[in-house]
């Protein structure tokens, strides 16, 4: 990225002044190296976001930002309905509520070693992953609507998981305001046999070892102990969310001129929050959030069943579940004034700090866990919402390492078999139905997660708590 247009206000914060059609400034977080590596498209896209009606304070890009659709991946922006603010289907993306949850196993790495291969085989067999995989749960129309209203609460009610899980999911397992009637028949059809499936691409289920602790008190409060294993599940709202994104992106792109909205990029398709279209999208998007929460809840249940076969005492308690691609209605205090805002996080994680009123009781004193996913050969990280005042970027943090190489380039560098063998040599078992998919997701295709985590920490977006190293990876 050409940083000559930016003012560097600290080691990890860069400002693009408000100019032209921009309604607010743009802020990019990251150190000099991360910004040098970022695509120029990130700057172009975050500048475009700053032009949208009703945007508040600034348009933000996280340290893992990369070229997305309309919004950069790693983009955060908040809008005020009372100021003509918009909700953008492009600002949420296709994989609505794609997110990560982490389960604590209490199992030491040494206990796993003799069972590692068999556990990997069982997880691969029982967790549907990859293109064309189907779940065993087919929902009729009434059950589909109940799932879309109830999210993980619906799933627990159906026997997938435990009531205690709900205390450790954003919105206690169900987004309010979901409108199943705003979800098209096509979107519901697309979801018909996809409940409890991981999907493909960068989605995964990983067994990971806690290899480093940066903040012992927070790690202890989270139940993280060095040398023990956790399970991370990364997936989203599957076909239902993809279809909702597709349909509303089109509808909003066509409708925008009628609202007097000039779109600097068609992919920023949006509608006023206080419009029929805006409200209908919010209802459908919240239903998709619930679909993602139910999906991760079902996969949690399947994972626990597999683990119980090998480790009878392991309860696999849920640490937390975070979503990455959302628009959520939240209270914030931009400029010291308390306002209800619609915060878009596109490839970014909510990172509420200790004491935040919307945190579950378990995290009231610590702040919420924030999960930064790595690639299948590199570390992942657990962070915690940082208590800085004023809060940064509407209490948001990064979500992953971010790609440094396209899928196309990755295929020219690696073969799937070669990646699997190399990782096996390092003690990491990768199971995937697609050799090409593995090559496209090769660890070398991703940026160094450590520098992303360090930048988020230094910028006050979130604080480092623990580092995780992959042991078993089930890829879609």
């Amino acid at each position, binding site marked *: 990225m050409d940083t000559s247009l930016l003012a560097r206000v600290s080691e990890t914060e860069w400002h693009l002044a408000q100019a032209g059609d921009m309604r607010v400034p743009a802020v990019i977080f990251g150190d000099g190296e991360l910004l040098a590596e970022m*695509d120029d*498209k990130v700057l172009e896209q975050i500048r475009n976001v700053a032009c949208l009606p009703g945007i508040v304070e600034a348009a933000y890009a996280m340290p893992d930002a*990369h*070229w*997305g*659709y*309309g919004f950069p*991946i790693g983009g955060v922006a908040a809008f005020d309905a009372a100021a003509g603010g918009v909700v953008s289907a*492009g600002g949420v*993306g*296709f*994989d609505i509520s794609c997110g990560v949850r982490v389960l604590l196993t209490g199992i030491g790495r040494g206990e796993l070693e003799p069972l590692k291969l068999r556990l990997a085989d069982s997880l691969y067999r029982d967790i549907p992953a*990859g*293109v*064309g*995989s*189907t779940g065993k749960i087919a929902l009729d129309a009434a059950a589909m609507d109940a799932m879309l209203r109830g999210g993980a609460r619906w799933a627990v009610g159906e026997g997938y998981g435990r009531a205690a899980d709900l205390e450790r999911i954003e919105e206690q397992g169900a987004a309010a305001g979901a409108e199943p009637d705003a979800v098209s028949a*096509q979107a519901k*059809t*697309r979801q*018909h046999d996809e409940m409890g499936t991981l*999907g*493909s*691409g960068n989605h995964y289920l990983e067994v990971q070892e806690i290899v480093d602790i940066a903040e012992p008190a927070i790690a202890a409060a989270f139940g993280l102990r060095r040398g023990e294993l956790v399970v991370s599940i990364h997936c989203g709202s599957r*076909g239902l969310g*993809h*279809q909702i*994104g*597709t349909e509303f*992106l*089109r509808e909003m*792109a*066509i409708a925008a001129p009628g609202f007097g909205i000039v779109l600097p*990029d*068609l*992919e920023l*398709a949006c509608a006023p929050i206080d419009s029929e279209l805006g409200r209908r999208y919010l209802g459908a998007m919240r239903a998709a959030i619930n679909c993602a929460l139910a999906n991760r809840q079902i996969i949690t249940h399947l994972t626990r069943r597999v683990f119980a076969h090998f480790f009878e005492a392991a309860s696999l308690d849920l640490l937390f579940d975070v979503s990455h691609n959302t628009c959520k209605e939240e209270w914030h205090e931009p400029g010291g004034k308390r306002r209800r805002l619609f915060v878009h996080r596109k490839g970014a994680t909510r990172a509420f700090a200790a004491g935040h009123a919307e945190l579950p009781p378990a995290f009231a004193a610590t702040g919420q866990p924030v999960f930064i996913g790595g690639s299948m050969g590199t570390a992942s990280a657990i962070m915690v919402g940082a208590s800085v005042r004023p809060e940064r970027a509407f209490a948001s943090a990064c979500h992953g390492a971010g*790609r440094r190489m*396209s*899928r*196309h*380039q990755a295929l020219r560098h690696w073969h799937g078999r070669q990646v699997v063998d190399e990782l096996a040599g390092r003690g990491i078992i990768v199971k995937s*139905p*697609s*050799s*090409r*998919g593995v090559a*496209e997701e090769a660890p070398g295709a991703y940026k160094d997660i450590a520098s992303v985590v360090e930048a988020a920490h230094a910028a006050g977006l979130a604080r480092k708590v623990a580092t995780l190293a992959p042991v078993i990876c089930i890829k*879609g």
Partner: protein
Amino acid sequence: MLRAEHFAHAADVGVRGIGPTREAAFEQAALALSAVVTDVAGVAALEPVEIDCDAPRGELLLVDWLNRLIYEMAVRHMIFGRFAVTIAGTRLHAVAWGERIDRERHAPAVEPKGATLTALKLEQRPDGDWLAQCVIDV
């Protein structure tokens, strides 16, 4: 000239179709979409699926066409290898031929989530060929 190809996008894949007519460019873009998932040479054109779309602008018709294919692939668990497209005004009618996806034989790499409006282009080039492209979220 008929050409189906991919172009780079940081996280996803761009698909591009080039052909002597708009219809041919749409067919080639569809082939490029299938190639995101698997090697299209290995797809048998066994079962026809009819598709109709209507959009106010040519570019949106391209996005609708690719999104309908993604939808049919998802709900029928199919992969397509041959296409016949006709366009009249704002309407597209097409037949896509393909087969049920076989995870062993097709080894599908990734599932397309949706055709985006990013790098969206439908244009006639100076050499007379048509170019149809956009980025696919995978």
